[in-house]
């Protein structure tokens, strides 16, 4: 059951993979925003 609104019963392995995938995706987006924004500013300042 990924984030597509469907509702099939997942086995626990499938569910764990889904959790890991979504967590990594969102974590990466947040980390890129977080670190990227700061890094970009510091880079701009040192130009």
């Amino acid at each position, binding site marked *: *059951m990924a984030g597509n609104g469907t509702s099939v019963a997942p086995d626990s392995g499938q*569910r764990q993979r889904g*959790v890991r995938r979504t*967590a990594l995706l969102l974590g990466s*987006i947040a980390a890129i925003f*977080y670190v990227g924004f*700061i890094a970009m500013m510091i880079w701009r300042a040192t130009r």
Partner: protein
Amino acid sequence: MAYNDHAATAHDHDAHDHKPHGWRRWVYATNHKDIGTMYLVFAGISFFIGGSMAMLIRLELFKPGMQFLDPMFFNTMTTMHALEMIFGAVMPAWTGLANWMIPMQVGAPDMALPRLNNFSFWILPFAFILLLSTLFVPGGGPAGGWTMYPPLMLQGGASFPMTIFAIHMMGISSILGAINVVVTIMNLRAPGMTLLRMPLFVWTWLITAYLLIAVMPVLAGAVTMLLTDHFFGTSFFTAAGGGDPVMFQHIFWFFGHPEVYILILPAFGVVSEIIPTFSRKPLFGYEAMVYATASIAFLSFIVWAHHMFTVGMPLAGQLFFMLSTMLIAIPTGVKVFNWTATMYRGSLSFEPPMLFALSFLFLFTIGGLSGLMLAIVPADYQYQDTYFVVAHFHYVLVPGAVFAIMGAIYYWLPKWTGNMYDMTLAKWHFWLSTIFVNVLFFPQHFLGLAGMPRRIPDYAVQFTDWNMVSSIGGFAFGLSQFLFPYIIWKCVHGGVRVGNRAWEGAHGLEWELPSPPPFHSWTEPPSDALIQRGAAH
């Protein structure tokens, strides 16, 4: 009106719950209910700390002239009060409610990432200890306002880097909490719990979580730039070095306006749960509510500069931000209409959660309408930086967000504890809060319109009368809040036992579980029939 209509279901696993005991249960907590409780307790403590700062502010403003506080300390109090209430009270309270309710409402056994959940919570006490400890460093705490505008903020003493670091920690905690919410909702919904069957509280939290992930890094970036300007010789916001202080305001409000919706969207979800229950009718326009929430979230990204009309911007910019701000009234109006339509011809009863939801409906709407007034550029030139703005955002955040949190706690407390609370005391709490929140904040509209500036410890004598009224309202509101922890404490320790469905009109998966729910709930996913019965919209 509590009654036991359901015998314990097959989900009563109390017999083989293996709860950790003692301090380990809390320090190493991974259970969503325990972590939810810790967030709520933390939010309660912050609410009283932030509230005591508000009392000091109102004490100083009771009369013109300098009474008790040094002006610098007064500014520190306004700054710390805001940071405590926003990041320490309201946001953790919503996260606590999300932790408690989302897994139970979507039929999941726990949050998807329980250890991350523990980490997200335990960052917070350290962040706030750090923030509060600035009160004891040379130069005192941060005094530049919660908006931290440079160059004022850059003039802070030893408190400055501590505040920035505390804000980073709060931001990281919020982002991690938000990731957990999205992952749980997207992956751990029970089979049959489609997106459009989810309770509105879950929907509003899902959208809030996306907002958090999008804007907290922006705040982190902004405060880091302040830090490098102060310590590493950069000139992002220093005009002398070619920087632009107004740029900070743009970046800050690009975070700050969505932040307002982070504080209020879950309140919309809670009210959308409470009103149908006590109207004994399904929510009117469920899908419209979902789309309205998403629209508000989208619009929140394109209205930020309405906080900066008086700073100066091109006419086209003023028009864009004025009109986009006014557009928010449309989805918000949809919500207010739908709540009202839900009550229309309903079989209404007025238990404490419903009273708080109704108070929210009326008083949040007042805050929304004064927000519309502030959106009008020429009018904003008059209102900017006056007590009218203070009245506006306190109407949105106190009878708005805070009352919704109180309503949510009164709604779900019987589920959490298995006991009904003292209804009479809770109604006293409601009436005292509702009366005195208006005595406290309504006169501030008059003060603002008459020209009283905000963030000052002294004022001209013509503002005396309404300031006295406001302060009396503040003290009475503050005192009446002591009823709340007492009512909760009493309920936790006993009371009339309630059944699974503590309120007869309640729908949703959480009401299918025993009260209190077992330590591990929904270890077996709920059946489709249960989900359909819960999704009565």
